[in-house]
């Protein structure tokens, strides 16, 4: 991790920390809050221009060069059906490790790191609109509902697989 997360840590409850807790990075897209396990986050960097890929899925913004490694950037806004992020210098790419790949997640801003007891994670309601199963669970945090993301699903639908499929079909 080259950039340290300088974010105030907020504990879920002031009571003694539970043994089984998940440490979660939360970030925002519009007014929605999302979260992923901190262990999956490699680094957080400012927006950087990407090279578009031909005929990729809509939420694949393109590829960028992270110190010599090529990785794809996925627009979370597009993935959740809220349009395309008009990326600017203030936007943030969360570099994550998913399965054996490294990917970038384009979000509006990173908000916080929180410890959440495992017991506080509710299963995602059977969302009819979440056809790709992007939401893995929900956590109530103060007044916010944090949607925990299944990154593998975000990225899988991001086109790697889809592209693979079409290329095989071709």
């Amino acid at each position, binding site marked *: 991790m080259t950039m340290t997360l300088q974010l105030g840590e907020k504990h879920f409850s002031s009571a003694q920390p539970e043994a089984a807790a998940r440490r979660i990075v939360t970030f925002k897209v519009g007014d929605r809050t999302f979260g992923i396990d901190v262990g999956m986050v490699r680094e957080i960097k400012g927006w950087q221009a990407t*090279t578009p890929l031909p005929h990729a899925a809509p939420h694949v913004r393109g*590829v960028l060069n992270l110190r*010599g490694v090529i990785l794809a950037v996925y627009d979370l806004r597009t993935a959740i059906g809220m349009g395309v992020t008009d990326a600017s210098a203030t936007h943030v790419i969360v570099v994550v490790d998913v399965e054996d790949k490294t990917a970038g997640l384009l979000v509006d801003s990173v908000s916080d790191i929180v410890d959440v007891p495992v017991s506080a994670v509710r299963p995602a309601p059977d969302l009819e609109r979440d056809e790709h199963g992007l939401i893995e669970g929900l956590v109530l945090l103060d007044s916010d509902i944090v949607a925990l993301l299944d990154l593998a699903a975000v990225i899988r639908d991001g086109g790697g697989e889809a592209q693979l499929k079409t290329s095989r079909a071709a």
Partner: protein
Amino acid sequence: MDPLAELKQTFFQECEELLGALELKLQALDEGSSDPEDVNAAFRAIHSIKGGAGAFGCTELVGFAHVFEASLDHLRSGRVAIEDAPFTLFLRCSDAVADLVAAARNDEPATERPDLLAALEQVGKEPVAQAPAPVPEPAPVAIPAPAAAATHNDAPPGIAALGNLLAMVEAKTAAPVQPVDDGWDDEPVVVPAPAPAAEKPGRDLRLRITPENDLFRRVIEPRVVLGSLPADDVVAIRCDLSQVPSLETLDVTDCWMRFEVDLRTELSVEELHGRFDFSLANEEFEIETLESASVAEAAPPAEPAAEASEVPSSVAADLSAILAKLGPAPEAASQPEVAPAPALPPVAPAVVAPVAEAPAAIRTAPRSPANDQSARQRQAVSVRVDLDRIDKLMNLVGEIVITQSMLVECVRSLPYDVYAKTAEGILTLSRQTRELQDHVMAVRAQPVKAVFQRMPRLVRELAQTLGKEVRLVLEGENTEVDKTIIEELADPLTHMIRNSMDHGLETPDERTDAGKPREGTIKLIAEHRAGRIVISVTDDGRGINRDRLLAKARSRGLVGADEKLAPEEIDQLIFAAGLSTAEQVSDISGRGVGMDVVRRNVESLGGRISVDSEPGRGCKFTLALPLTLAVLEGMVIRCGDDRYVIPIASVIETQHLASTPIERLPFGQEVLRWRGEVTPLYRLGEVMGSTGTTNENIVIIAETERGNNVGIAVDEIVGQQQVVVKSLEANYGTVNGASAATILGDGLVALILDIDSMLRLAASGGRPPVSDLKMAG
């Protein structure tokens, strides 16, 4: 991994190389080579395998290899003429050794081959009468005569150099007082001739053998060296241990023994030289003609012998005393060669060296000798390096290339006076970078031999199964290519050869009927051509049966019922995926098993494969591969806002679009008239969905994998440079139209175009249907 396992791993790797070499040499001999070096090389290979196997306790392997080696030794010593040698048997034995090695590697029980062993033992039996009979051993002062050593069948515990080394280590640690443990089967140091040779005719020669310290590491041992002398001619052998350093400083893998051999022989000096050809470098021995009188003087080497062999008992207690006795008399020890001593001074005379001085002398002596240095200059020293490390180096060089092209961009914006100087520096830097890159690539380069060597065995086995007679011709085995490519080559080559053998070549009877020699020929040739490596597999078989292939393709719907194909186009169907997966294809068409897999493999390496067939005459598959997967020479082009890289190897020509007549066919396909051909034109921006305005000015004529040409319209040619190939699959997936990506000077990513994949993309109309996406989710 523990060190021993690691060593063992290395041994098995070496075994593979050695087996390959063994097979090649045997093959060459079988085909009529009479080069004694081939015999020596084969012998050396099996000898090294045996040595290693002994060290790692692979008893079956040692046993078999030993008998094998012994029979090869008959050839080497000339007891069996090369023309009479049973090479078919030897080749089968080499396969058996390969099996034994594989068994040892996988810790499986080895299959015994008593039949082969028995056959091997017969080798050289008839003419054995001419061979010198094993000399009765005048114990304890005789070495077994080489002939005896070679024909003894009991597994020799210490014969192999590695085994010897281990034994030495054990001996040194277990019995440090044994000062003359020379790793030579604990035999005494000085050996008079097994039989007095005074009456023999011939000249008296004295041989000084001063092996380099790395003798053992070359997997040669003194026994081999001395054993290559005709046993009957040896009058006396003296071993000089004076240079053996003290125990603390002794590296047991160093050989410090020096020998002096008196010979009465009819062999000429040249012939003697020849005997050592394979074990010693020319500098390691010298031959001196003795006056016959001096032989008499040299003959009683008994005193030093007695002296030396007494050492163990007399000095068992005091280590330093031993060291002193072993200590070299500095003058005598360091320059035995420069002082062509008159016959007399025996070589191990240092027994009286003063105790006090000796240890110091010992410590310095082994480091100083001038021949140490000359040895280094002479030999091509090689290092085994983990490929990972070189990969990292390669990556780093790649990064430097990128940084440097970034600098070039930055400098452009500088004011002129500063610019001129900086530009000069950057020019130098870029030359150096390129050189660095070339060198790193050279480190990774390896001869294709590594893969080619596996093929003779494959051919032999297949020929047996298929009942065909096949001769495999290998050419260009020393053509070098990147290590990663070599590893990926094995599969495609195996497939191609199998295909040629199975479907291409006819049975011997069919060949006779067709007026061809019974024996079919398969040629495997590698060569460098225009920055690529081109490998071809040619057979003189029946060629592709186009009617059947086409019929099959039609029945599978790959070719429309009314579609007419040129003969060459039909041949290309061999690579079509739908065709080859079905088993019936191999029955009816004669070609096609797995060739689609081959093509996929080759394409994934950035290569191309093509086929030429002439019915009745044979078939030729040609593979063209990049020399490395890490960098390629590319042309950077721009379309709207996007930049792409086209591999230079695909580019045939570029020209202004305006000066090229374009026509539009029905259904909208644009074509160029180029050099009397009608060449389809694709607009890159359109095909790849580039953003920004596109204003095509340039057309690039590129070659497809099939050898057809296409025109690709782009906005601008930005430049030509070496680019570092970066995988898209590693973190993303396959991208249609691109084979990989690279990072340009400004740090942005550009896709490396894959012409064929791009054409497929264009044909499919680009965007995958939405339904497809959903299915993927």
